[in-house]
C-alpha cells in the first residue's frame, strides 16, 4: 500500500489555514467490530475552512470513520481531535456536553429520513439551538443559518414533504450549521438527490466552508463533489491508500485502486 501524502503548501488552501487549530485531526485511528478491524490506522486532517473529500466504496470503513469521530462507535486505538479536544477519551456525559457545544455536526445522506416529517423547517433548525439559547436568540441564529443556505423565508413554515430534495438537504445543513460547528461531516450528502438538486447542495457546502467551517465529505462517488474539495483521501479496505490535493489525486491518481475508482466513473 503506497500512501502518498502531499505537502500542505501544494493544496489550494493557504498554509495559514493549517497553522490554526485543525477542525479535525485523526491520528492512527483503529476501529473494530468484534474481531474485524474496519479502520486500521487512519490519519486525516481537516483545517478550518477546508473541504476534504473522503472517497471509499461500501465496506471501506468510511461511515465507521464518521461515526467514530462523532462518538457513535468506540475508538479502539489512536486519537481523534475535534477542534483541539481529544474526543476518543470522552465519557458519555462528556459527549453530551460536547455535543451541546455544537463542535462537530453531521449531515446524513437522505434528508427525508434525517428530518422529522412532522417538524417545520424552522422547528428542525431551532431544535439544537433551543437546548442552550433563549427563544429570541435561537430564532435569530436559525434565521441566519437558513439564509446562509439560501432558503427563502416563505419556505420556513413548510414540512419536509413540501420541499424539493435539494431544499430538504439544505434544511439539514442549516440545522447542523446553526449551532456553529467547527467541523461538519457530510455522509453522501448528494447521492440521494437529483442532478439539479446536487448542484445547489454542493454550492451550499462550499459557502459553509468558505465561512470558516471545516467540511469533511464522505462519498463513494466524488464525481459531483470533486470540484469543490480542496484535498481528497481515498479509503480502501480500512486504510487510506492515497491523499493529496483534489486536482492531483483525481487528475493523476497514483494508487491502482484510486485509478480504478476514477476510471469507473462514467464521463460524458
Amino acid at each position: 500500500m503506497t500512501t502518498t501524502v502531499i505537502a500542505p503548501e501544494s493544496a489550494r488552501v493557504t498554509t495559514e489555514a493549517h497553522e490554526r487549530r485543525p477542525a479535525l485531526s485523526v491520528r492512527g485511528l483503529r476501529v473494530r467490530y468484534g474481531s474485524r478491524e474496519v479502520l486500521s490506522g487512519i490519519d486525516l486532517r481537516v483545517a478550518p475552512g477546508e473541504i476534504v473529500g473522503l472517497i471509499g466504496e461500501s465496506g471501506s470503513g468510511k461511515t465507521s470513520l464518521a461515526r467514530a469521530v462523532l462518538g457513535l462507535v468506540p475508538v479502539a486505538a489512536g486519537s481523534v481531535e475535534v477542534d483541539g479536544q481529544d474526543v476518543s477519551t470522552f465519557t458519555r456525559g462528556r459527549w453530551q456536553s460536547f455535543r451541546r457545544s455544537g463542535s462537530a455536526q453531521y449531515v446524513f445522506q437522505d434528508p427525508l429520513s434525517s428530518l422529522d416529517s412532522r417538524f417545520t423547517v424552522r422547528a428542525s433548525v431551532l431544535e439544537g439551538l433551543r437546548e442552550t439559547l433563549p427563544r429570541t436568540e435561537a430564532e435569530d441564529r436559525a434565521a441566519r443559518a437558513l439564509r446562509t443556505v439560501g432558503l427563502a423565508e416563505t419556505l420556513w413554515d413548510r414540512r419536509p414533504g413540501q420541499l424539493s430534495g435539494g431544499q430538504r438537504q439544505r434544511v439539514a445543513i442549516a440545522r447542523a450549521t446553526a449551532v456553529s460547528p467547527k467541523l461538519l461531516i457530510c455522509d453522501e450528502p448528494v447521492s440521494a438527490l437529483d442532478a439539479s438538486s446536487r448542484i445547489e447542495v454542493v454550492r451550499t457546502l462550499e459557502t459553509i466552508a468558505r465561512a470558516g467551517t471545516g467540511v469533511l465529505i464522505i462519498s463513494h462517488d466524488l464525481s459531483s463533489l470533486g470540484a469543490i474539495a480542496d484535498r481528497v483521501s481515498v479509503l480502501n479496505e480500512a486504510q487510506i491508500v492515497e491523499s493529496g490535493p483534489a486536482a492531483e489525486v483525481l487528475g493523476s491518481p497514483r494508487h491502482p485502486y484510486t485509478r480504478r475508482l476514477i476510471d469507473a466513473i462514467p464521463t460524458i
Partner: protein
Amino acid sequence: MRTLRTLTSRPTAVVAIVVLAIVSVVAVAAPAITPHDPLAQDTSHVLAGPSAAHWLGTDYLGRDIMSRLVAGTQLSVLAAAEAVVIALLLGAGSAVVAVFSPQPVRWVLERVFDSFMALPFITFAVAIGALLGNSIHAAMVAVGVLAAPTFFRVVRASVLEISHTQYVEAARLLGVRLPRIIRTHVIPRIVPVLLVTSASVLAASLLVVASLTFLGVGVQPPTPTWGGMLSADLSYLALRPWNPVAPAAAIMITVAAVSILADRIRDLGDGTRAPEAAPDDGRAGEVTLSDDAAAAVPAQPAPADALVAIDDLCISTEAGTDLVRRASLRVPRGASVGILGESGSGKTMTVRALLGVLPDGVSVTGGRIAFDGAELAPDAVGRRDLHGRRIGTVFQDPSTWITPHLTVGAQVDEVLRHTHGLSKKSAAATRDDLFRHVGFRDVQRVAHQYPHELSGGMLQRILLAIAVTGEPDLLIADEATTALDVTVQAEVLDLIRRLRREHALTVLMISHDLAVLAHSCEYLYVFRDGDLVEEGPTEQVLHAPHHPYTQSLIADHAVFGIEALRHASRSTHTPAPPKETTRL
C-alpha cells in the same frame, strides 16, 4: 380535522361512534333517565316478563332490569376506563424508559413485563381484590397491571423503531436532551398506537369487569353493574331465560363498538403515513383510473424497424395530474436508447406503461404503444407473454427483487423451469451456464448462497442472467446501477454491453445519471416534469443540446463533474470508447 372527516366517511366507524356516544350519554345521565329506582325492590313482581311499566322485565328481587342496566353503565364503563389508564401509564411509560435506558435497566423491565404475561388474569385479580380490599378500584388496579404488558410490548416496538431513526440520531448529535427528544419526536408518533391499544384493552377490560363482578369481586350487591346483573340473572336462567340477554347485549355491543372504532383508527394511521414516506413520487399514488381515452385514438401501424414505438403517450392520475404529456419515443431494433430524467419526471411511468404495470390510480389517457409492430392494449392483459420472454427487466435495488429465504440457485431454477419448461436437472445445468455467462467463476458456490450473502453487484448480475434467459428482444434497465458503488456500476454496465452484443439485444436504459447513459446509449431522450424536452443522438444531446434544461445539466456536469479534474489522466489513460468496450 382531516382525520376526523376521513374517519366519519367510513359507515362502520360512524355506527361505532354513535353507539359509544349513546353509551356515554347514558352513563352520565343515568340518574335522570332511569324509569325506576334501580334499587327499589318489588317482591310482588319478581322475575316478571317485559311489560309497559318494565320494558325488560324485573329481576329476582322485583327490580326493574332496564333501570339497573342504565344505572350500571357508568360504573362498568368507568371501571374499564380506569384499568386502561393504569395499564397505559404503567406499560407505555415503562416501555419508553426501557428503550432509552442502559442495558441492565432495559433487561429488568423486559423480564418483569414478560413475567406479568404469565400470570392468570382472573385469579390474579381475585387475589389483588383480597389483598387491597374488595373494591372496584382494587380490581381495576389488578386489571391495569395485567394489561400493562400489552402496552409495554406494542409501545416498546414503536419507540425502538423511532429511537433508531436518523432524525432522533440527528437530535442527539445536536446535544438535545432526552426528555425533549421523547416529548417532541417520540410521543406524537406513538399516539396512534396508544389509541388502538387503548381501545382493545378497553374492550378486554369491559369483559373482565363483567367477569369479576360476575364472580363477586370488586363490586358488592346491590350496586348495579352489567356483569353483576348477568351473574344474578344466570341463576334464574331456568325460570327467565331471556333476562341475561340485556346485560350481555350491553357488554357485547359496547365492546364491539370500541373494537371497530379502534380498527378504523388504526387503518387511518396506515393511510396517513403512506404519503409521507414517498413525497417525491407522491404524484404517482394519488387516485384511481380511467381507461377509455386510450382506445379513442385511431390505430396506425407502427414503423416496422422500431421494436418499441410510443406515440403521443399521455399518463395521468385520476385526479387529473398529468404525469406524462404526449411523449413519442422510438427504440429501433438492436439500438441502445437512454431515457434521462429526475424522479417524478415521467421516465419510469413511461416504461411502466410499456410493461403494463402502472401503479393503482395511474392510467394511460392517450396515445399508442406498439411492440414489434403490434399495438398493445392499454391494460396489462395482452402483455403477460411479453414479460420475461420478449422483454427482460432489471430494476434499481436488486435485493428487493429476490426472495431472501431461498438460495439464488433455487430461484433461478424456478424461473427456468417455469418459463422454459425445463426439468430439474437441465434447469440446474442451464443455470450454471448462465452464471458463468454473467461472469461468476465458482458457479456452484454462488448457486448455494442466499441473497444476503451476495453483494449488490453480484445480485444485479444474477438478475441480468435471469432477464436474458428467455432470449428477450428488449432489455429494460431501470436505474439498474444507481444503488451500486462506482466500480461495481462499471462492471454491470460492461456486462449489459456484452449481453447486448452477444444476444443481439435491444436495450432501453432509464437513469437520472447523464454520464451513465452517455456512456452506454446511442440515442437519448430527456424527460422533465412529464414532458419530453429533448431527444437526439447522444453526441448531439451532449454537444449541442436544444433545451435549456439539458444545457444546464451538461453545464453543471462540466463545472462539478469529474471531467474538470480528469484531463490530466487523459494523456495516460485513453477514455473508454463510448459504445462497445468490454472488460472481460
